[in-house]
């Protein structure tokens, strides 16, 4: 995580006050803070002139937006067809056990967020786990644990 974060006002100023900039603003806020807090969502709504319910609907529709704080590292376990057959399910369960967090949630110390995804397009490497931007191919429980310990 960066040492300093931009002020929300600076992000808002990037876009004119028009409804069509809602998604761009949500993306920028998500990128900067890793999630969209209720306060930020309200500020974005005021800025672009969109009712809160509409912005809420958009923010919950796309998986790339999160309304809850995200961890420093994102673990995405693939549960696509191939990974599923190759035991992706066991990898998630192992993560849940080791990190003490349910899938879709963030650890209490805000270190990790555990998610499952439906295919990351790397079936040849199945089962795959994505940690932040990196792919961990042919993952096993020990290799995953090792990688996580490094972080």
């Amino acid at each position, binding site marked *: 995580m960066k040492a300093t974060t931009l002020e929300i006002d600076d992000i808002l100023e990037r876009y004119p006050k028009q409804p069509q900039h809602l998604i761009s603003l949500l993306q920028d806020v998500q990128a900067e803070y890793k999630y969209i807090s209720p306060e930020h969502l309200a500020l974005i709504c005021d800025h672009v002139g969109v009712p809160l319910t*509409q912005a*809420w*609907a958009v923010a919950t529709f796309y998986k790339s937006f999160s309304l809850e704080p995200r961890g420093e590292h994102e673990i995405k376990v693939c549960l696509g067809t191939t990974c599923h057959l190759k035991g992706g399910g066991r990898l998630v369960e192992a993560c849940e056990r080791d990190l003490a967090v349910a899938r879709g949630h963030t650890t209490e110390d805000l270190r990790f967020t555990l998610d499952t995804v439906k295919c990351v397009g790397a079936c040849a490497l199945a089962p795959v786990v994505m940690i932040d931007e990196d792919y961990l191919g042919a993952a096993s429980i020990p290799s995953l644990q090792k990688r996580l310990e490094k972080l």
Partner: protein
Amino acid sequence: MVNLTIDGRAIQAKKGCTILDAAREHGIYIPTLCYHQALKPIGACRICVVEVKPGPPRPLPACATYVAEGQEVVTSSPKLDAIRLELMKLVLINHALDCPICDKGGECELQDLTHALGVSVVDLEAVKLPPHKDYVSELIERHPDRCVTCGRCVRICRDRVGALAINFTLRGYFTELASGGLPLDCEFCGSCIDICPVGALINKVFKYRARAWEVTRTEMVCPFCGGGCSYELWTKNDRPLRVVNYDTALLCGRGRFGFPVVESPDRLKTPLIRENGGFREASWDEALDQVAAKFKEITEAAGSAAIYGVGSPRATNEANYLFQKFFRTGLGTHQLDNPGRYTYVQALKGLAAVFGFPQVSGVEKVAKPPLPFHSPLTTTEEAKASGFPLVLGKLKDLPKADVALVVGADVTPELPPLGWALNTALERDTFHLVVANNRKTKFDRRAHLSLRYKPGSERLLIAGIIKSLLTAQPEWAPTVIAGGFDEFKENINKVNLKDVAKKTGVPEALIKETAARLAQAQAPAIIFGSELMGQDKGLENTLALADLFLLVGRPGAPGSALYPVAEKNNTRGVCEVGVMPEFLPGFVPLEGAEPGPTLPEMLDLLEKGDPKAPQALYLLGGDLLRQLPNRSRVEKLLKKVPFMVVQDAFLTDTAKLAQVILPVAVHAEQEGTFISTDGSLGLLPRALPVNGVRPDWQIISQIGSKMGFAMSYASPKQIFAELALGMPRWAGMAPKNGGAAFTAEVTGQFVPFETDISLPGRRPFTLLVGKSLQHSGSFTTHEPCGTLTITNRARLGLNPADAQNLGLAEGDFAKVTSSQGEISVPVTLTPELPEGLVFLPEHFSQPAAQRLTLNSNLVRVTIQKG
């Protein structure tokens, strides 16, 4: 017309209609779930699939497929039935099976469909989702586990109401109805409840009170504003339980949640007679005898002109007609008026000056006796009409206009149906909305041009628009045949556009663009509300708009008209039936007799102690103290009247000054008709017992009879027949119908108007006394009206910057002082208001907004903390 066959039946359908419309018209059943006749079809649920030949090799949704020549449609086949069954199973997969306790049981479309399609077992399984029920929001309860995600509520909220308060959250199987993770904070119109096919949205006022099959349903007109919506009142054991509009599902919060006013514990139950400084209960005979005797005594001593009457925009046409008959025929005077004098009548006078009084020809009596509440007159082929009522628009035509100029009206609080009509119009890309107001209103968000003028500068702004139009196009000829144009042009030439921009605060470019839009318009509509009419110069404001309409209006084009807001249910009716000194019923100017004083003139007479001042007042409802500007003066003057009779349902502040109070029937306790803002007739049938009170018409008739006037009637039907016989312009009029068509002859006369916009006084703030969304007059401010749970008291709207300067926070009490008085009121921060403008709703008696006003709904005030 298009020829097609549905299930082998050859039928004809209108071009551009859908297969579903065509099938329904011919009584062919196609099951639907997400379709509603009031909304645009989205074809989401796919229950209505049909096979169409020629067409793609897959079933098509009947609700979103248009008819075509030679089409062969099959609505039922083993394949279609299998698809529908599968879809229903998917819908029911996680549906809460709580029909026995669900309020929708018995009128649930999902229940009906499950029966119709014979779904007996759901052999599918899915993860159970946690139901995020919302019991916290006011008036509306949400049960997402009963939701079928048809999107009807989302669409009506977005497309018709324009509130965008509810929407779906998440997606796919997890889709759920939500309001942004917070309790609902919307207009609380409840339209989402009635459009919901299942029980996902529940009306808290009605919840658990009855089942749909146990109630008696009576269709009637809504008495909470001048919109003239109709709804079904549900009653059980003589108690009103709920109102539903099955046609469009649209009603506003006052209509939907205001009806419990009938059961208010503060209703008056027996007549009251003043005695020893207080009131004592009296029998009807005693009270009516006393009124008649006292009226007789006064007429004998001081002449019949000593009695003055004030009619009511709440009461029915029949009651108001009898009221004016009591004065005109009974007493032989024209000493009467109605409180609309301060708002709507000003507009009517202005329109009459420009477009002339109504003239009607070619009307004859119908051959056979008409049905009850149908006009006994009909039009012949040569029927012609002229005069100002012809330029008053109909709400159903408004969406056909191509430009709408809204001036001085916060549309939705003034008249909710007008807002729905504007939203419908806005669906067309070619429609342009220009909103001019002194503050940001709901429709500013959707307006193509948004003009923000300084309070009270409407007429100067209009002068600026006219000047700009005539400067840009010097050869412009009025689109309506009108006299006095040259003189008018000279007057307008004196207007300096720079000066207008400075004084109104509207940039010159915006004025010019508005003028250009209006000049290009093929069907411009002009909408104006009581904010503009309720000023002391309301007449001048209307003249300005009427002149503008002469210049650009196209009365031949549908939708191109003037739309003044008639605020209350019968504001227009009380004027049409002649409760004004200068007009007989049907706006026939009084000739050959001296009209009595108007309401403000009558108050002036009382102030001067003039010998012509009335000795007795007969008030047909209407809390004058709450409605009229300058409350303390009105109070002082009313106290001077020796004998005052008030007919009202509540012990209002005005009623407290009376000698005799006669309790009246309200809402569906009486029978009668209203004239809505667009001139259509709304029928109020009796659906509730009267419990000791009496309808207005009966009281007037009984007092009249006791005074020896020939005024006994058996029912409002009989009064309507007599009334309508004398109203040629009502020819062909029937409930929910504005009457027969006349060949319109719209001509006008340019009338110069005043452009001085100074507001007296030096105090720093301007107070606007206006309407709140949840209330209609003072009628909805009585417990147990649901409207009170949303807006329970008056709050002073204040710009946050002003509030900060004054050291006021939300909920703090502010002392508001004007030259007329002082009140203390909690503030609410309202960013929509510009700095320097504050807003107070007029509906409440404590604190009384009218204590501050002088002669207008605008007044300069000082605000202090405390």
